[in-house]
């Protein structure tokens, strides 16, 4: 099972280390982790995607709540939230495959953001599944390097908020 943890933390040095340390010490998985400031400069938001059985996922929430630098922990499943991830990837192209690459980018709504005579850089911001699909489609092309942000997620909009 997969679970997304949206964790508001005090924006202090060492907090990321404490959270990451908690996951490694208790053998919890981190599928992805993204951190950034929120609208409040003193508060950062960590979006952590983890997987495991029911008991493990529950323990993750409880153990996170025990950490004194953590202000609030929210958990949700993928379908309860809007998930987005950003990926940059650099590929080597040649005359024969350039068009194919551009077509794939078009279909999957990825952008070409940089280019040289031999290389292209592609940017995609979408659901993690779409990002996986783009990687799959570009398998036949030689990928030089890839950087991904990890998933960011917020629960879907709700009138009662």
């Amino acid at each position, binding site marked *: 099972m997969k679970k997304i943890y949206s964790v508001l933390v*005090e924006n202090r040095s*060492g907090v990321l*280390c*404490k959270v990451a*340390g*908690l996951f490694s*010490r208790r053998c919890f998985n981190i599928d992805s982790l993204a951190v950034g400031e929120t609208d409040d400069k003193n508060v950062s938001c960590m979006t952590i995607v983890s997987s495991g059985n029911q*008991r493990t996922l*529950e*323990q993750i929430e*409880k*153990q996170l*709540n*025990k*950490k*004194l*630098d*953590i*202000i609030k922990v929210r958990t949700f499943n993928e379908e309860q939230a809007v998930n987005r991830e950003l990926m940059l990837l650099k590929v080597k192209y040649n005359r024969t495959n350039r068009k194919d690459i551009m077509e794939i980018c078009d279909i999957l709504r990825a952008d070409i953001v940089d280019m040289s005579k031999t290389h292209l850089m592609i940017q995609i911001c979408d659901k993690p599944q779409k990002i996986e699909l783009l990687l799959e489609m570009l398998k036949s092309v030689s990928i030089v390097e890839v950087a991904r942000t990890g998933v960011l997620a917020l629960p879907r909009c709700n009138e009662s908020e």
Partner: protein
Amino acid sequence: MNGADILVKCLEEEKVEAVFGYPGVAIAPFYNSILNSDIETILVRTEQNAAHAASGMFRVSGKVGVAAVTSGPGATNLITGIATAFADSIPMVCITGQVSSELLGSDVFQEADITGAVESFVKYSYLVKNVEDIPRIMKEAFYIANSGRRGPVLVDVPIDIQNATVKSFKYPESVKLRTYKPTVKGNAAQIKKVSAELLKAKRPLIVAGGGVLIGRARKELVKFSHEFHIPVVTTMMGKGAMPSDDPLYYGMIGNNGHPYANKAMKECDLLLMVGARVADRSVNQPDITVTNKVLVHIDVDPAEIGKNVGPHIPLVGDCRAIFNDLMETERSKEHKEWIKTLNGFKEELMPKRDPNPDYIDPAAFIEELTNKLPEKAIYVADVGQNQIWSCRYANIKGGDFLTSGGMGTMGYSIPAAMGAKYAHSDREVIAVCGDGSFQMSMMELATMRQHGLKSKVIVMKNNYLGMVRQYQHFTYDDKYSVVDLSGSPDLEKLAQAYEMPFFRVEDPAKMSKQIDAFLKSKESCLMEVVIDPMDLV
């Protein structure tokens, strides 16, 4: 006034009477300032023991102990003591000196990233960056350590912060922590559910863990057990929560406990697990706590509930508050049949020993010793075979029983006994260790002598690391590896060196009189008990 003066003033505000520690350059300003205070300083002989002494002091007095050591090796030596306290949820405040702020991260002499190193063994830690923050940090440190699920807090203070000048000192009256609000009172709806189960149950049982002792709920436990007619078993960390001569006490659970206590846990129909973690050594098959019974798990830490076993009724809160709330509910009737069954288990499953008559039988020795102990005596068991014998055979009536249960740290008993003795100089305090664990902290005999801490030490001598030898006996067909302790010092000469009265107990016929003489002495004395090297627990 400088940062070090402020640190000392904070300790005074917290009514700290003694600091256990070891100096060094990075903590020198603090140890200079403390000269102007009434706070006593106790020089241990290695830093780890400062934490153990602070632990022993808290466990018998409820006062948060303080350890103060220098940077680098001083701080890293303290880690085992901190981890030991963390595993048993013992509060303490550890102050470590640190190299000057501007040198942090440059690997200068005696620099260690101690807040990073202890992260998984502390409840919280601080690296002080501004001298003005000291009062707030110290107030928070004591509050965090001694509330909720208790545990150690470390405050790392760079030397330049200790030397920085401050104009005035004001200790905050309260703490403001938006991220930390421990639950004290149990949820009323959950308490109602527990009450309904109490009225229904035919075979109820309480498992009292270390949380009952740390939460200072012994009286409440006994009262609740008596008024609701519920028998009690304990974990190793809970030993002493119920007097061992109480008619409703049925021993200690666990693979090293009493078989009749384990049987009681298996056969009950309502299990109240209070302040216990359901850890592997006390319940090796967590499923038995939920099979054919209702499990109520009471703990101050919500993360402990459901970690090892999913209870039917979780109840988060401070166990003393919860016992008091449960006392307000309708009393359950006597369970005569169940008590009869339990007495049957006790008769049938009483551990039988076949001691070697050429040596002192540790079981007989511990029974006789603890039966003769004055009221309110404090018994500190070390780790190893001696610990298992102590847990099984020590009769703790009104006193305290301390041991390192979670971490199983060898060498705990002597420094912890020292801390206990500091808190209660009027009570008999005895550390019982093996010859392995004794040699891990025998340097503290000097601390005892220097500071007049007249705790007594008993060494069960078998010239082996007995617990490991026993393991190798069963697991590796007596192929012993690295367990032989020959080379150990002559304890009689050692006692002479520290000017301690010495007793060697080797003749079972003389044992009783020697115990009397040992207990009669007003000095801290050393007793060697010669036991069979091949004995098994």
